[in-house]
């Protein structure tokens, strides 16, 4: 029998008003080295003393994944003995048992409905959380966001949900806003309009929730820059690399020289792409760029009008012009 350290605790019997002291053996340890750290070997289910190598614990429960793999996934009974990995950071540990789908004749009543139905009341406290995580995952999937951003968005949602300051707001709105903040924090911001496109919440509401979440979590985000959106917009338009580099340079120069005060970085980026594409072979109209970037074409026109007089300073030095600067459209 493995040597165990005694832990003494007391129980109080209310009927007889007597306190009993009992010792219960809970922790295992090596008999020669009681204070030594135990190394756990999950494959064999052992606990080994780090000093002398004595195996002190056995038949330890294996918390790894199922090691038997099955190619026949369409079988009625799923022979896997474990469920999916639990999500300990984001849920309360859900260790309830659920009744599986029935197989065989006995589990169906006369009408063909399964007798034991308990799909309800799984985890009522986390129901909102699980719904929100599913929404975030769906939204991220539509715009191909990686798992790191989804995880960060889930974490933000959980923090907001626990804080309870935004309790009255729609969960979908908070989910969209936390996805937006996650993209910002990872350094790959998405515009509000892009998040609106995959969510059913209006831009106004997402903006409101965004500000409230920043206040509730007391965090700040970096300001968006023109360069964050260049690669995405240009590849969506199918522009060649040198045009994209030129557009990035134009937008950065325009902001540095402060030619476009008070204009949103998205509009400046769109105008820079227009200028670069018009100077190269692959020309794009303001309408095309406006559709991709989510800005109106009059907005692009306004920013372009501010940038056009300074076109000479904005272009990079090594840019080869298919259309020279003088022939750029002044609209």
């Amino acid at each position, binding site marked *: 029998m493995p040597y165990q350290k005694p832990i003494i605790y007391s129980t109080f019997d209310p009927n007889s008003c007597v306190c009993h002291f009992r010792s219960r053996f809970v922790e295992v340890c090596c008999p020669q080295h009681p204070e030594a750290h135990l190394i756990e070997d999950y494959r064999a289910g052992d606990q080994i003393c780090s000093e002398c190598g004595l195996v002190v614990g056995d038949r330890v429960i294996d918390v790894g994944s199922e090691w038997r793999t099955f190619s026949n996934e369409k079988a009625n009974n799923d022979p896997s003995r474990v469920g999916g990995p639990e999500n300990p950071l984001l849920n309360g540990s859900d260790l309830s048992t659920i009744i599986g789908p029935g197989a065989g004749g006995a589990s169906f009543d006369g009408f063909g409905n399964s007798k034991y139905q308990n799909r309800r009341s799984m985890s009522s406290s986390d129901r909102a959380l699980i719904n929100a995580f599913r929404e975030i995952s769906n939204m991220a999937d539509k715009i191909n966001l990686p798992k790191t951003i989804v995880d960060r968005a889930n974490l933000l949602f959980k923090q907001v949900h626990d804080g309870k300051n935004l309790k009255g707001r729609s969960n979908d709105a908070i989910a969209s806003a936390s996805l937006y903040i996650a993209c910002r924090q990872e350094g790959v911001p998405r515009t509000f309009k892009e998040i609106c496109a995959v969510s059913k919440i209006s831009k106004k509401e997402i903006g409101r929730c965004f*500000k409230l979440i920043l206040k509730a979590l007391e965090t700040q985000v970096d*300001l968006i820059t023109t360069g964050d959106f260049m690669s995405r917009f240009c590849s969506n338009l199918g522009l060649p690399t040198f045009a994209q580099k030129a557009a990035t340079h134009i937008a950065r120069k325009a902001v540095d020289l402060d030619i476009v*005060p*008070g204009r949103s970085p998205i509009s400046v980026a769109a105008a820079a792409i227009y200028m670069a594409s018009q100077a190269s072979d692959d020309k794009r109209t303001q309408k095309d760029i406006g559709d991709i970037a989510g800005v109106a074409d009059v907005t692009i026109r306004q920013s372009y009008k501010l940038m056009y007089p300074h076109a000479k300073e904005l272009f990079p030095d090594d840019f080869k012009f298919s259309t020279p600067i003088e022939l750029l459209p002044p609209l």
Partner: protein
Amino acid sequence: MEVVCGGRFLSPSFSGAWRESTSGDNTRSIIDQSQMGEQEQVSAVMEDEKVIKEEDLEVDPEPVLDIIINNVVSSFSVACHLDLHHLALHGNNVELRKENGVLTMKLRKPPTTASIWSSGKITCTGSTSECQARLAGRRIARCVQKMGYNVKFRNFRIVNVLGTCSLPFAIKITPFSQKHRDAASYEPELHPGVTYRIEHPKATLKIFSTGSITVTAPSIANVQNAIEHIYPLVREFGKARSEEEMAEYRRNQARKQFPILNFEDVEEDLSSSEIEEYWEPM
């Protein structure tokens, strides 16, 4: 600090503070109220203590900063329940919206709008000074009293004041918002201005890249203190206006010099009988 109804608004503390910092060249002048017309203006003299070293930073020749109060929102109670339906049928210039449960009464002089609830609470908006707001409140209460309610003028307080100010220079808002991360919030996608909140005095300022500043605060004194507080912070991010911006700025200033409403003239035209008619229930 005295506040004279309908008159000039001076802040001795403010002028005193700036007196120390002047070089002494420019004379101090408070713009006379009568020159500017009815719109209440708090004029304060701002001195540019830094000698202008950069030749491109040109400041507008007049060194005076006008703070214009656009809106004063006040709230009070008449201390008795009101029958909004009866008021809507028998009152002048009233409009009842049943879905909100609010009666709107518009006054011509001073031009204000009051929202009246059946509990007797009234919110009055549209005034341009503290005493004008009080006067409007009393007129509303008088209108309600004339329709037969036992009215008392209780708990009058100013809830919100909106003031605007146009600085003589443009502002680089991106570096400004980066420096003041804790108090300033700038989201170019949502709003073109920086929202700057200050705790003491309590105020919210919206700072735009053209140099205009909008302040909302619980009192007129707070508006002035907020502008004083923000001026040095914004000054270091000032930049000269380009030609188009200067043209735009001048156009805006010209529009503000000749306000559409000028109720001093209206007051002379109204005879006493007209006032009686205006208040009589239909």
